[in-house]
């Protein structure tokens, strides 16, 4: 499947549906170790992305991703808003004016997204944040970079799932969950989970 502005928009719509379906789960994860809003925040943001896409789909893949970025920044709030917003913004920056995104370009964009999140939030691997889903996802994507878009995203999503899973045993050091210290052990980080959900939705959409 070609990765154009149109298919990217469709993937974002698919992601919005997945987030809406997991809204309660993300709230519950955040309730356990944070402030019970991550599902609501993500749902508000992706619902707004769908509305924006309903009005008009920008011409280039970069513009679509940038629209998602600015919408997330202006609608989500909380920690997740600026972090995901920056991720999409940096990814968009990589895409340039390409009319279609190929495997290697996608991998570059994913790497840029990760770097953006780390630049903004200063979290490293093992801090029990969305970074723990993103780092293995980007590595897996890089390894699969020769295969097609769908395969790359599938590999990333698989790795993100494992990464999210790994946060269950970690003591958080960033974000609200860090206040809990040892007590946060046994809970999956909501942002890591939403990262894994988004990558899975993109992978499915690319099939």
């Amino acid at each position, binding site marked *: 499947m070609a990765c154009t502005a149109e298919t990217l928009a469709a993937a974002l719509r698919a992601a919005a549906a997945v987030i809406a379906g997991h809204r309660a789960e993300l709230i519950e994860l955040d*309730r356990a170790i944070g402030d*019970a809003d991550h599902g609501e925040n993500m749902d508000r943001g992706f619902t707004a992305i769908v509305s924006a896409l309903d009005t008009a789909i920008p011409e280039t893949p970069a513009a679509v991703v940038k629209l998602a970025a600015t919408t997330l920044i202006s609608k989500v709030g*909380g920690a997740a*808003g600026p972090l995901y917003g920056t991720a999409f913004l940096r990814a968009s920056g990589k895409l340039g004016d390409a009319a279609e995104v190929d495997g290697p370009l996608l991998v570059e964009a994913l790497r840029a997204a990760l770097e953006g999140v780390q630049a*903004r939030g200063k979290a490293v691997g093992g801090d029990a944040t969305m970074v723990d889903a993103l780092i293995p996802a980007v590595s897996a994507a890089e390894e699969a970079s020769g295969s097609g878009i769908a395969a790359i995203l599938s590999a990333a999503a698989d790795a993100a799932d494992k990464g999210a899973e790994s946060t269950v045993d970690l*003591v958080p050091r960033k974000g609200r969950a*860090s*206040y809990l210290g040892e007590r946060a052990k046994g809970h999956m980080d909501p942002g890591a989970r939403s990262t894994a959900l988004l990558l899975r939705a993109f992978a499915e959409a690319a099939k």
Partner: protein
Amino acid sequence: MKKIINDPKTVVAESLRGLAAAHADVLRVEDDPAIVVRADAPLAGKVAVISGGGSGHEPLHGGFVGQGMLAAAVPGAVFTSPTPDAVEAAVKATAGDAGALLIVKNYTGDVLNFETAAELAAAEGLDVRSVVIDDDVAVKDSTYTAGRRGVGGTVLLEKIAGAAAERGDALDAVEALARKVIGQVRSIGVALTAPTVPHAGEPSFDLADDEIEFGIGIHGEPGIERTAVMTADELVARMVEAVVTDLPFAEGDKVLLFTNSMGGTPLVELYLAHGIAERLLAERGIVVERRLVGPYITSLEMQGMSLTLLKLDDELTELWDAPVNTPALRWGV
């Protein structure tokens, strides 16, 4: 969940409508993005002191907008920090040549969103500074946490910075004063029950009937330990000890004592706790020169309280005493 609301998604917007209707003489509410600004904004020749954060902590911040305190408040969704464009809109609606000071409570979300807003505003040529308040002694300020949270001290900071701006201090001076306040204010909170966020629909955490959470933030986030219920004497003694030894506050220090209800704790209990705190501070030779008692920075309907101590000097006392006219704090006007 039982709440007086129509729809979790519209709670903040509808509430702001009521705030605007109730206090039209003092403030107005602008929509999309939602911000609360002084009725007489923009403020020519005066620094605009602006704060904001997730909603659900009322009267913070909207209830502190008005003469002698905040120029604007930026309310996010319940317990969710507002977005950069809302903060930027508040700056544009209130700040003139004298610039703006953003008061940011130290939570990852608030810091990231306000930082971005400050960059956006600066890019448009506005003189915007920000200070981050982190007065909660319950959190160890180490690389293992997001750092100390901004809690009760925020109310005192907003009053004092607002008073400095009102008397015409320049941005440099208001900022320096804000940093001074942040340097000498410390707080600790406890929760007896959990708040219920409207969109979540159930209590944010589970606390047994015989447990309290010692060292909570304003969303009920945990801090030091979950412990058994204790008498008010024991509880307040532990709280006073935690706050006093942190700065530390010493014998002979003049302080403002702020005894705050987290929302659900009734005044009869709050004054009881306040009386104990006054006694314990007197025993330590710490001189309470000013006090504030009531629900000023809350966590929805959560039962619990916080104690905040601010070390006073003549300038801070004068700024605290200066006239203020906001929905939640008013004197001298």
